[in-house]
């Protein structure tokens, strides 16, 4: 079904989506409505216009394609499904996501992939085509964060405090330099073939959706950040 959403309150819009028996939903003229797809399963939603915060929060297996930018907290605590953003995304993109994939063609704001975690067969993936803001992958405990730096003006294409508190998962950065403030509890190294094999299918999916050349992307150097499990915070406390 097609929903003309410009005048709808978020509750009306979301009620319409949830109560529709159609799998395919096209939303036109979206303008800031929050919580689209919250907890939703088994829908294919395409959005024209800018959806509001917390798009796809607790998403439980649906595809959401946004033709424009998205605001903050997209994919908050999502469990399964795919979100494609043809523009850029706001702060806390993919906060605490446990599964599913978020593909952002442009840039992501602060704290992208914060507290991302993997579990059993669930492997959350966040691919950012451009650059990411500071605190990328803060507290990351699982899953994959990939920043491609396409069109980025800085190298590496991240802000400050990248991977602070990281204790699981992997961050891939397509660049020539490691972040200069990499914390001591994180290890950075050049990606090897096995590392690159791990992300091949996600790069393909990214390129397919956004019409980019996989070859060109993969022809560049990638770094991989992983937690240094030897050097976590274990010694901080003393029994009192």
């Amino acid at each position, binding site marked *: 079904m097609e929903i003309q959403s410009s005048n709808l309150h978020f509750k009306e819009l979301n009620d319409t989506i949830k109560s529709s028996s159609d799998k395919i939903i096209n939303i036109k003229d979206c303008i800031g409505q929050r919580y689209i797809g919250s907890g939703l399963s088994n829908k294919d939603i395409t959005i024209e216009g800018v959806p509001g915060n917390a798009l796809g929060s*607790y998403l439980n297996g649906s595809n959401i394609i946004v033709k424009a930018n998205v605001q903050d907290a997209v994919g908050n605590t999502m469990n399964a499904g795919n979100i494609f953003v043809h523009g850029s995304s706001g702060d806390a993109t993919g906060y605490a996501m446990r599964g599913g994939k978020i593909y952002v063609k442009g840039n992501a704001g602060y704290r992208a992939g914060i507290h991302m975690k993997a579990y059993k067969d669930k492997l959350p993936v966040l691919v950012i085509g451009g650059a990411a803001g500071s605190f990328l992958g803060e507290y990351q405990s699982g899953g994959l964060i990939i920043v491609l730096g396409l069109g980025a003006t800085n190298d590496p294409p991240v802000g400050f405090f990248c991977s602070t508190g990281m204790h*699981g998962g992997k961050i891939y950065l397509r660049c020539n330099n490691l972040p200069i403030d990499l914390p001591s509890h994180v290890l950075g190294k050049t990606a090897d073939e096995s590392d690159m094999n791990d992300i091949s299918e996600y790069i393909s999916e990214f390129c397919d959706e956004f019409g980019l050349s996989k070859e060109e992307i993969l022809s560049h150097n990638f770094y991989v950040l992983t937690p240094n499990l030897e050097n976590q*915070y274990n010694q901080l*406390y003393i029994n009192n």
Partner: protein
Amino acid sequence: MVMNLFYPEYEVIRNKGKCINCKICQNECANEVHNYNDKLKIMTDDSMKCVNCHRCIATCPTNALKIVKADYTFKQNSNWTKSTIEEIYKQSSSGGVLLSSMGNPNDYPVYWDKILINASQVTNPPIDSLREPMETKVFLGKKSNKISRDENGKLITKLEPQLEIAAPIMFAAMSYGSISYNAHEALAKASEQLGILYNTGEGGLHNKLYKYGKNTIVQVASGRFGVYKDYLEAGAAIEIKIGQGAKPGIGGHLPGSKIVGDISETRMIPEGSSAISPAPHHDIYSIEDLRQLIYSLKEATEYKKPIIVKVAAVHNIAAIASGIARSGADIIAIDGFRGGTGAAPTRIRDNVGIPIELALASVDQRLREEGIRGNISIIAGGSIRNSADIIKAIALGADAVYIATAALISLGCHLCRSCHLGKCNWGIATQQPELVERLDSNDGCTKLYNLITAWKNEIKEMMGGMGINSVEALKGNRLMLRGIGLNEKELEILGIKHAGE
């Protein structure tokens, strides 16, 4: 020369005449205090390891044991106390941040003990709670402030989502991980039998406990552990944990070594991966962001469940509560600074936050002054120790209370305050299977059931004495309270008169 600056805090006193070398104490003590010496054929002990949990005393078949406070002493000093000195030794030898468990044990005023309850004499009648109806049922949730009617003038009776509880008492959040599965199961079962609710804490919900859903509050904390659609839908209400009385402004860290088996499963993180709960929710940096999280949860659960926001009682609590009441929350839970914890930095636990009595009184008053007390229900927690505390909390303005330490004590906890060591001999704050199995969940359920039933009867008796036969007529009824030994400012904040006035 090797020097030991630490001396045992407790001493094991063993009556040699009574001890039969049965080694039960050795088996029962996970701290390895008791040891059978094969050569000497006697039980020996390493008092240094003793946390004074009384497990050995309780299990000794001949009553041969007692634990006493060691009587060594520093030179008398009211300023530099023994613990102050010893903490410096600990920190200077380790560089560590001091870590403690359970609630603030320091000598701060307990306002509950400075408040007295009224009773009827002559001008109106007390009510016999045993024979007359006495209502303790409470509904928690938003109350609409404007009625509406349909076209035929009939009242539209749809309510905002409400939690119906048989008594104004619920079990506060304690995660599976901080306490054992058996403890959790006991809480769930007892809640079902009592018609009240327990709270998962931020550790997720074990598969086997989903069936107690209608008696469960599921928590969403900053780590979002175990949070997904089925979990949100499993409970009767969702609690957003902003903070906790024992450690306001502080997150949590369950080390990877404790993320094993079921704990990993309920938290939905791999075994061995640390469970870090950041200090803030990283999608809440301002009050309007709270509204965003509240409504994202309401959207995900189709507005069927009340949303609780739990905050620690801090200095500006009245304004914070007012902001929460205006953010779409249905219920606010306020946790006072004496609330318990499975682990908190000692300095935070002992110095941050304010007492629940003052926080509750000022929140209730502020919400009334702003005319929005009906928009939100208040749960008070943070060291509610008995039924009189509950009566006082409700008369100050609470709709219901959260209890946790008292619940653990009924399960056998002896408040040795060593939860963070993970070796709880009573099977409560531990994940070691051989310790966990010491706590039988059916037995624990009975204890909890008995405790709450007894408190409920006491509440009815006290209400009856005041001539009140329904708990809603006690709520905010501050004339039923008088202060004893409180100064003008304290009375003003509590909104009560002094005894004799």
